[in-house]
């Protein structure tokens, strides 16, 4: 599922396939409060990028902002390219027409996302009628084919069923079939397995892995579950209070999380698995902050075991931390991890247009790509020795 490194060989954007998603300095504000505070993100075709975050981290606002699906009360700034197209630059009608072909959206609550009074197959068929101009009978047949593609037994039966007649896992499959029906270059999945049983989740993850290998879409997968990230993601981005605090190849981040928050999330999980029954669990203190304007310093500082004076005074920029890269490279070698590293795209955050951005402009070599591919926004990142 890793992207072809060749695709990312030239970071300048010339002479290569457009990224499935390229967000630049995206901001989403509600009533003046920033939910997404300058996020730059890139998802290559065929790549699964996991976006990790908790309540009010801004992960869902980011997803909806990317798809340009937010209500007009939300103020969205920044540039978003989906396979090279920015929906915001198109007239509203044109954007609506193009959206379904550009981005598929898989919501957490399929019951709410599907129309309860229209059979599942008809809802998929509608896409083919509206966007491909198919006649009803042809569109219905195509819908059954799409349901078969998501490994549904007897798809003709499911096509005739109403959403409430289907189990949770089945509804989620219908959602996936619908999202992928027009083969969009980008899929956004907003916690699609959170409400499911573990065994149903396992099936859905397995299914997405297969479909992804078949279609080569880029996937932005939003979750708070590190296990789901481990199963699916090539690259990860960890969001906290509207900003990305760490991003990089999944293996490297799991091996040596640089940001204390990422570190805490991973340790919480490891401790849950390996700790002695009845012994206290490893816990991160405090709780995620509410939206606020004009925050000074690092948003994680109040909960951070490594905070010092500077953390309360200035917000750390998202940037590379050299020592870790050497350690990461030494450990992951030149094998698949290297490939992941190359697949991780060069990034810059709104507030970090400094060294990282310069590196991005200057060198198209693999080494430089790796060097800009693993970033953390922390004054005191964990640096492995």
């Amino acid at each position: 599922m890793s992207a072809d490194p060749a695709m990312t060989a030239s970071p300048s954007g010339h002479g290569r396939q457009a990224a499935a998603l390229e967000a630049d300095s995206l901001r989403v504000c509600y009533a003046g409060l920033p939910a997404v505070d300058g996020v730059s993100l890139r998802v290559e075709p065929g790549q699964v990028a996991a976006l990790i975050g908790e309540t009010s981290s801004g992960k869902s606002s980011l997803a909806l902002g990317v798809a340009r699906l937010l209500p007009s009360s939300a103020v969205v700034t920044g540039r978003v390219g989906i396979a090279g197209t920015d929906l915001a630059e198109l007239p509203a009608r044109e954007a609506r027409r193009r959206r379904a072909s550009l981005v598929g959206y898989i919501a957490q609550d399929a019951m709410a996302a599907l129309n309860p009074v229209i059979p599942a197959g008809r809802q998929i068929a509608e896409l083919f009628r509206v966007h491909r101009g198919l006649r009803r009978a042809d569109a219905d047949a195509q819908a059954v084919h799409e349901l078969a593609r998501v490994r549904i037994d007897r798809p003709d039966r499911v096509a005739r069923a109403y959403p409430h007649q289907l189990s949770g896992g089945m509804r989620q499959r219908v959602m996936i079939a619908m999202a992928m029906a027009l083969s969009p270059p980008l899929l956004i999945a907003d916690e699609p397995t959170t409400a499911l049983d573990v065994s149903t989740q396992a099936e859905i993850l397995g299914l997405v892995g297969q479909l992804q290998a078949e279609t080569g879409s880029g996937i932005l997968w939003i979750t708070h579950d590190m296990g789901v990230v481990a199963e699916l993601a090539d690259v990860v981005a960890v969001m906290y209070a509207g900003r990305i605090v760490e991003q990089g190849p999944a293996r490297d981040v799991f091996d040596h999380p640089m940001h204390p928050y990422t570190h805490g999330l991973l340790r919480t999980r490891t401790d849950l698995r390996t700790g002695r029954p009845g012994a206290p669990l490893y816990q991160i203190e405090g709780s995620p902050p509410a939206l606020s304007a004009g925050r000074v310093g690092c948003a994680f500082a109040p909960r951070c075991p490594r905070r010092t004076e500077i953390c309360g005074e200035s917000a750390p920029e998202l940037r590379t931390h050299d020592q870790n890269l050497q350690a990461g490279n030494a450990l992951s070698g030149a094998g698949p991890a290297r490939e992941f590293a190359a697949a991780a795209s060069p990034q810059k955050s709104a507030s970090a247009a400094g060294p990282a951005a310069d590196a991005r402009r200057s060198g198209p070599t693999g080494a430089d790509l790796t060097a800009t591919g693993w970033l953390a926004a922390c004054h005191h990142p964990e640096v492995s020795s």
Partner: protein
Amino acid sequence: MTAPAPDIEPAVQAGRRDAAPVLGFESVSKYYRGLAALDQVTLSLSRGRALGLVGESGSGKSTCVRLALGLERPTSGRLTFGGADYPRGRRRLRTLRSQVGFVLQDPYDSLDPRMRLREIVSEPLRAHRLRDRDTDRRVAEMLRAVGLGDAPLDSYPARYSGGGRQRIAIARALMTDPAVLICDEPTSSLDVSVQAQIVNLLLDAKRSRDLSLLFVSHDLDLIGRVADTLVVMYRGRVMESGPAELVRGRPRHPYTKSLHDAVPADHPVRRKLITPASLRASSGHPAAGSIAAAGPVMPTVPAESAVPAESTGPDGPAGQGGPDCCVFASRCPAAQARCYAERPPTVTEADGRSHACFFPLAG
């Protein structure tokens, strides 16, 4: 289950506890419109211990909680509290309820947004007519005990985050100094970074107050950390039970194993749900119809089996017991003809574990 299973606590613990379990289910069944939500379930919670109920939706976990809270009565079987039968009648049930606290899944739903902290936390005292001049002091003390020492008594729940609200709910549950605390997925609607705080608070309360916990969760990892004894349920029946470490680490029942296998990996290099093998198995057949073709590692589940337990209850009339087969047979990789023809009895082993399977794993 041909004979009622004996106490599922390991025998070693026998000396440390009262003879009678604090809370006991003896071959309890509960039918809704003739369909079994619980089918001959036997549980036993000892004083100061934590009993973990794990299972997926439709397993009967929530029915167990409703019965234990006295909100409903079993169709058949016996519920005991401190060795005596669950009382009948509203007044006597009320006395029992002061001994059984509960913390529910969603702290946004379970706290009345129009009530102040003082009223919320002291409500059990009011319900049991225990409120007095000292109440405010006791509320403040309890809030301190759950880590909300600086919370004003006249604040509203809206002021607090999910974790804060769950602390309020725990304070409320502990006000009457109950013997048993029922926790129904107490952390599953909380942020990951906050879950451990709440679990630690519950473990702490268990230790310091000699509380017995009935802890319900779908999360095998979490429940394995909290519970001393684990009970794995599927479609209203107990599949396997025993000391948590054994059940979690070396499952005997194929269902427990499948739950274990469905938990995602802890590191990208140890992926188990999406593997190169499972991808190869499907490539070239993009429209292959069957889920079963998805790959060797992925748990294969027929599409139709994801429906709730109620719809696959017994064929016979109410009270006749479940179907004469293993309810897991249709999903079981090791199922044989016998599994479809007979109900596996509950077998108890020397190490304190019991399972209901004709062909248990080596464990």
